[in-house]
């Protein structure tokens, strides 16, 4: 019971921290807005069989949810040596509670960030129905959790913030392209295709698109695999990353 209270307290603190940091709120919105509006619109005139703007929008939505949660988890490395998190690490709650609380908290933060992105979508004319939103909600939570587990496995293998800041872009940036966040990936050369299949973000992006495009005629041009297939892959990678990542993290945390 006290472990559950611990998870809730850690998660709630993350959300409060985010909501009280106006600069962070604005900066997390600039990146997706820039890509959707600039990139999506500039390719909109090209002769594609589907709306490129909508394609980029759905990709950015998935990428933001996934990456924001992952990055939030990685901040635990920095926090370990700073501010309140030192407190968390010496408290009697289990190390697993700390990891779960952090994933849950960063999921709440990412979901909060998703709301203005959806509003931005409505503003620039992305067709969004109530039915789509209802389906996207639980799927978005799953995508966040998957990003969180990805963050745990990255964090577990990096021992300081400097390494994390330097390595993280190399892990994240190629995935934008390999996961098809803003570029269609159905005709990649074989070697890129292998890398794409290995990119965990690919399944999260495709899952969001599969749900978004479910009843739309563009489905066959934009979605690679069925949502149920992607969901299974996302859940499997979530469990594997979380278990291995948490184990490595808890083990490594005290053996410095």
């Amino acid at each position, binding site marked *: 019971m006290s472990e559950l209270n611990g998870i809730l307290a850690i998660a709630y603190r993350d959300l409060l921290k985010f909501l009280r940091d106006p600069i962070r709120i604005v900066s997390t919105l600039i990146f997706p807005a820039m890509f959707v509006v600039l990139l999506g619109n500039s390719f909109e005139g090209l002769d594609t069989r589907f709306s490129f703007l909508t394609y980029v929008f759905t990709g950015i939505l998935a990428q933001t949810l996934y990456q924001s949660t992952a990055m939030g988890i990685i901040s635990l490395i920095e926090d370990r040596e700073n*501010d*309140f998190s030192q407190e968390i690490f010496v408290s*009697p709650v289990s190390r697993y509670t700390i990891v779960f609380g952090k994933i849950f908290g960063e999921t709440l933060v990412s979901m909060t960030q998703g709301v203005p992105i959806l509003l931005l979508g409505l503003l620039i004319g992305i067709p969004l129905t109530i039915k789509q939103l209802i389906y996207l909600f639980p799927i978005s939570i799953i995508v966040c959790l998957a990003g969180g587990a990805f963050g745990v496995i990255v964090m577990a293998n990096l021992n300081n913030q400097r390494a994390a800041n330097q390595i993280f872009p190399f892990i994240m940036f190629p995935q934008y392209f390999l996961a098809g966040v803003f570029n269609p990936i159905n005709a990649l050369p074989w070697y890129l295709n292998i890398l794409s299949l290995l990119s965990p973000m690919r399944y999260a992006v495709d899952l969001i698109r599969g749900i978004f495009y479910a009843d739309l005629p563009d489905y066959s041009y934009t979605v690679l695999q069925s949502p149920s297939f992607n969901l299974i892959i996302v859940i499997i990678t979530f469990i594997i990353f979380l278990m291995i990542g948490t184990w490595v993290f808890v083990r490594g945390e005290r053996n410095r």
Partner: protein
Amino acid sequence: MPIIEVHQLIKRYKNANTNAVDGVSFNVAPGELFALLGPNGAGKTTIISILTTTLSPTSGTATIAGHDLEKSASEVRKNVGIIFQKPSLDLNLTAEENVRFHAILYGLYPFRLTFSTMPIQYRQQIDELATILGIEKEIFNPIKTFSGGMTRKLEIMRSLIHRPKVLFLDEPTVGLDPASRRNLWQYIQKVRQESNTTILLTTHYLDEAEEADTICIINRGKIVSYGTPEQIKAELIEEYILVDATDRARLRTELTQLGFAFTETPHFKIQLNGSTAHYIVKSINTPLNLLKTHSPTLEEAYISIVEQLT
């Protein structure tokens, strides 16, 4: 039975050539104020990290309140409070929220979203705490608005709400002005008297360590001196008086006749060697124009210990 028992503690960090802590053993009795001193990099923070279970030792054992650090880390954590070198309050949260999260993490109260929905016992505790600190109005303000001395005090109060048996203070007064330092120490002394909390302190301010029951000086991971402040001073510091006279030749002759060991520095420095200053001064008939007694401070003892080793 000691509340802290440390036996042959060794820590070597990964990829390090030497041991950061190199075979340290000591015991701390309940209620004691135990000061761990040493130059930067001596291993003080490493010892505290091990004793507060955030770092595993390479070898050796330690228990706190009877709980083994490795086998029952969670029990150890319940029994200790820590004030870190770097402040550990969340600046985005209010003073009350910082305390509330601590209380929930230590399993004292269930999680609630707001102060007003927390149990009545908790709210009473916060009221008392705010009164003691004199921040009845500011308790719901963000920590950002607090002064350095106030945040330190709040941290100590927060670390005491789960009633730890042992409180670790890792350089608690660094960066505080003299008035805040004194104020903080008055508060710490009050806590000791009221709750008999054992305190393990590291500090670079030697006057703070004068108050300790036991002092343990470490250098390069090893204990180099151990005992009460008086013992440490007695071991290392020479006690002497300085005298001088207008008629220096007469004084020199008299001192030699009396058989006192002295050196000219250029004043006459007379070693007490177990005698008292009073006795020596009384024996001298030459009119003196200078008389100084030298009572050693812990700082001098500390510096001479550390300098001998380097």
